[in-house]
């Protein structure tokens, strides 16, 4: 697994770190149990453009880099254009991400979506981002990856008896 130079640049020198005081919209996604947690705050101007955006992230190199670049990409965009940023665009902008790290870019775009909808709902308007799975505390960031939750799979990576009593997988945030 190798990170591109641009991922390392954004990881080592993250842009727009912090919290906007009295932010117009706040998006918090992820879950510390899964090792990834992101908070995006936005300031919105009178013409529905993102005037400022900041982030805080607990996570790996890719989580920090994707948060950083999504703030750069979002600044100055209309709310509609901001929620349309895709995980693939984030990954492309960073010069690619390892396959096992693609979920980090989902977290970054989701954080932005939640922040935009938070702003709209606070102002009595309809949300535009649609369902954001990672805002759910039970979100599994790895669900769309080639990862075996079936404990009978030949190459399952789990020790069987560590599965949680409620049927959840205590090792990878999979919920029943």
């Amino acid at each position: 697994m190798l990170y591109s130079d641009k991922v390392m640049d954004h990881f080592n020198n993250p842009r727009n770190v912090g919290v906007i005081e009295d932010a117009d919209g706040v998006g918090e996604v992820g879950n510390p149990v899964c090792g990834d947690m992101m908070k995006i705050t936005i300031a919105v101007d009178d013409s529905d453009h993102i005037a400022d955006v900041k982030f805080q992230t607990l996570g790996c190199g890719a989580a920090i880099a994707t948060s950083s670049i999504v703030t750069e990409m979002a600044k100055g965009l209309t709310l509609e254009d901001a929620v349309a940023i895709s995980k693939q665009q984030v990954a492309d902008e960073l010069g690619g991400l390892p396959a096992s790290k693609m979920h980090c870019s989902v977290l970054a775009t989701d954080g932005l979506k939640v922040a935009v909808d938070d702003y709209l709902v606070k102002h009595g308007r309809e949300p535009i981002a649609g369902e954001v799975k990672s805002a759910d505390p039970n979100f599994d960031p790895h669900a769309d990856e080639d990862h075996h939750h079936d404990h009978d799979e030949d190459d399952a990576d789990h020790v069987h008896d560590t599965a949680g009593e409620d049927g959840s997988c205590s090792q990878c945030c999979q919920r029943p």
Partner: protein
Amino acid sequence: MENVYFDYAATTPVDERVVEAMMPFFTERFGNANSLYALGRDAYRGLEDARERFASGIGAESPNEVIFTSGGTESDNAALVGILSRLAPQGGAHLIVSAFEHHAVLHPAEWLEKHGYEVSYLRPREDGHIHAEDLKAALRPNTKLVSVMHGNNEIGTVQDIAAFSAIAHEHGALMHTDACQTLGKIPFDVTALGVDAASFSSHKIYGPKGVGALYLKRRTPFETQARGGGQEFKKRSGTQNTPGVVGFTRALELMLEEQPAEMERLARLRDRLILGVTSRLENTEPSASTGKRLPNIAPLLIKGVEGEAMLLQLDNKGIAVSTGSACSSGSLEPSHVLLSIGCPAEVAHGSLRLSLGRFTTDEQVDYFLETFPPIVERLRSMSPVYARMFGSVS
């Protein structure tokens, strides 16, 4: 300071004295140890001389109890599958392995489970040790094999294998131990530990990669897992890696010569690291700190920081470490070892393993202790939850 290597439990550089011992077997004494002519006989002598010295180094009764393999993983696989498939060819036997084994034991155990064997995954307690009474409770009438690692590669705890062998034998079961992390580092003697089988790896002790050994006590039931020319007493076919075996053996001898002084030196450096980190940074602790432990592993939990982020920042400063975080090295789950000792997933994501070795110095420890705290403080200051979870940002 450049190239500070704190990952000796992952692999080690080959010692120059080991390279020197190996060199003649690449170019001059290159014969196939199974050939009858002079060149073959010479290689055979080199191989068998190494086997005798290796057997003596691990306390085996006879050189014929040592089978050279391609490494620790092959040895572990062969031990579990080879012993059980001879003892109970139709399945039905029960195997006990500890839940914090290396995957080289866990995955063959899972494979056996799918092929007609019963497997129990014995959990260590929160102190990072397997307790004898828990092993006794896990025994079943059909338990045929117990496998518990000698030293844990992530948290460094050393298990009481002699006691577990006695329990297994009293029950009529055999005992295997994965000793890849302990061979040469602390006293290890197959007879004193009473094991029937043990796995070893060369590259963990300044020997070459691609070489390992499996100790199989005389008369231990074993079905070969590599059929072919019948080398290694028909237990592991394939032309022997004579230079590798000679290097591995020399590496073991050097470890044993230096062991008493090195154990003391490394334990002191380990404790300096643990105390240095925990006194400089709040919300940090060793993941295991009681009972018998390897002198060269400092296992740390840095709460509220993700391990890969620490690893990459340390790498920027020339320091190489390991982490049990989910995000490390492409794996998606936090360390099964830390989870098995009751460490919550959100804390396991912030694990850092520093493992020390022959070329670790006090200056390198100083450099780490100076470099590391600002990295953690910066990452914590970027976290949306650190202040909420742990109070004030340090």
